[in-house]
């Protein structure tokens, strides 16, 4: 999209004569950003609705069904309510840091979508090192979390922050290493290329192509749950012990930003799981997806797949009790990390033996 708008300037002399050249590039970037921001925020809002409906059904309740059809607009009502609340800053808080922290968390969660291929040719920034960029920029979130927890000057916040930082940094290792299984076999970090290699029948999806990626998928998904601090790894927010973890002292709009960032993160990892392991926008039968209809179908298919993974995350959250702190670390360092390394070695051996086919 960015390239298309930028290309208008080189094609039309009228624009070249009357408007500065850089404007096309800037407009393109801004438009792409706005589109992604809107898409992600909307979908994050709908994930909140989805979570509450599924949780309700699991507990033999109905869940929100009043605002809009089947309660679909519930997130707008929630957002409005949060915006109407007073913005409280604790008197002992480090004011500046306290105010900046939510934006850093949100920026980290949102910037990760920059290299995400949403469909055939629908990628905000098609980078050669897309996966690397995503995994590294999404860990900026940790900085924001430390800032929020420290600046709040509250014992609940700081305890939650310490747990969260330990957990997020630990689980980034199995997360990155298990995604390497796909990278080693695919031979590229470019997510569009990784998806294109999964075209054709359903067994050409990476998860079914090698035992390494099959194991890698489960490790990736578990580590993603922990990195997102979703239950059963929700120790940083443990409601029963720590009130709400690092955002205990936040109210109103700033809390809404944290909340949105959390659900945007869920959406991000659901998308990334479908892109890396489950064929991205491919539907599992070999048809041409580069036509207009195919692109729209692929876009919807990718969203359907991510919705499926989101449902699984929600299902897990409302099923399992919380881990103990030391068990979380046990799971990371003694189970997921060694097995992800084994999976990468198996993937490498597979490339060595079969020549990458």
């Amino acid at each position, binding site marked *: 999209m960015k390239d298309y708008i930028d290309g208008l300037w080189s094609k039309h002399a009228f624009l070249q004569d009357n408007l500065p050249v850089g404007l096309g590039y800037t407009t393109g970037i801004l438009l792409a950003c706005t589109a992604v921001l809107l898409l992600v925020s909307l979908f994050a809002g709908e994930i909140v609705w989805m979570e509450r409906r*599924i949780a*309700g*059904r*699991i*507990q*033999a*309740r*109905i869940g929100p069904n009043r605002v809009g059809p089947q309660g679909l607009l519930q997130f707008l009502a929630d957002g409005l309510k949060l915006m109407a609340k007073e913005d409280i800053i604790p008197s002992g808080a480090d004011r500046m840091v306290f105010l900046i922290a939510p934006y850093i968390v949100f920026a980290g969660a949102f910037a990760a979508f920059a290299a995400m291929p949403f469909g055939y040719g629908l990628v905000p920034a098609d980078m050669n090192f897309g996966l690397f960029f995503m995994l590294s920029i999404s860990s900026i979130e940790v900085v924001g979390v430390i800032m929020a927890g420290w600046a709040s000057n509250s014992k609940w916040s700081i305890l939650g922050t310490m747990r969260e930082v330990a957990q997020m940094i630990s689980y980034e290792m199995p997360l990155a290493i298990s995604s390497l299984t796909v990278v080693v076999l695919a031979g590229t970090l470019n997510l569009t290329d990784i998806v294109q290699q999964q075209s054709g029948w359903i067994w050409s999806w990476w998860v079914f192509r090698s035992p390494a990626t099959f194991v890698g998928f489960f490790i990736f998904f578990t580590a993603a749950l922990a990195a997102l601090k979703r239950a059963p790894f929700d120790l940083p927010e443990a409601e029963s012990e720590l009130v709400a973890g690092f955002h205990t002292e936040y109210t109103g709009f700033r809390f809404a930003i944290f909340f949105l960032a959390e659900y945007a993160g869920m959406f991000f990892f659901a998308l990334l799981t479908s892109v890396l392991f489950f064929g991205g926008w491919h539907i599992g039968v070999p048809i041409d997806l580069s036509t207009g209809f195919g692109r729209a179908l692929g876009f919807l298919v990718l969203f359907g797949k991510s919705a499926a993974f989101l449902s699984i995350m929600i*299902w*897990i959250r*409302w*099923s*399992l009790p919380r881990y103990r702190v030391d068990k979380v670390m046990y*799971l990371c360092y*003694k*189970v997921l990390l060694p097995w992800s390394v084994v999976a990468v070695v198996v993937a490498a051996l597979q490339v060595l033996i079969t020549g990458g086919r």
Partner: protein
Amino acid sequence: MGYLGRIWHGVATTAVGMKLTWRHFFTKPTTIQYPEEGAYFSPYERGLHEFEPDKCISCQLCAKACPVDCIEIVGPKLAVTKYEIDYAKCLFCGLCVDPCPVDCIHMGQQYDLTSFERVEGTKIDFVKGEGPWRTARTSAAPGAGLQREV
């Protein structure tokens, strides 16, 4: 339990929990969507009263039996002009039902004393069949529902 045994145990117990919630997901919600749906009550529920004005002989026995004096009856025998119960006082004990010689006052099924507007007063006049609440049997249609449903 060894290392691999523990991993297996973790996966297996997770699967048990997930299966349980999966089953629960497909059960029917027990929620009653309150303003649209009513809750079930026993036939012997003591809710709002039901009154049959053409039977009432204005004998005042129910008013005398009432421990909180919430019943007011005006009018001659078989043609009462006012039979008013103050629900701010009424404690739904049912003591007014038993002494009635013509069996014209009953405890009904209506439990709902809410309204969508701010209302004045807490009294319902059963002869006019109207009152401050949006209770279908007293305010929606005058006289409707005052007959006992068997």
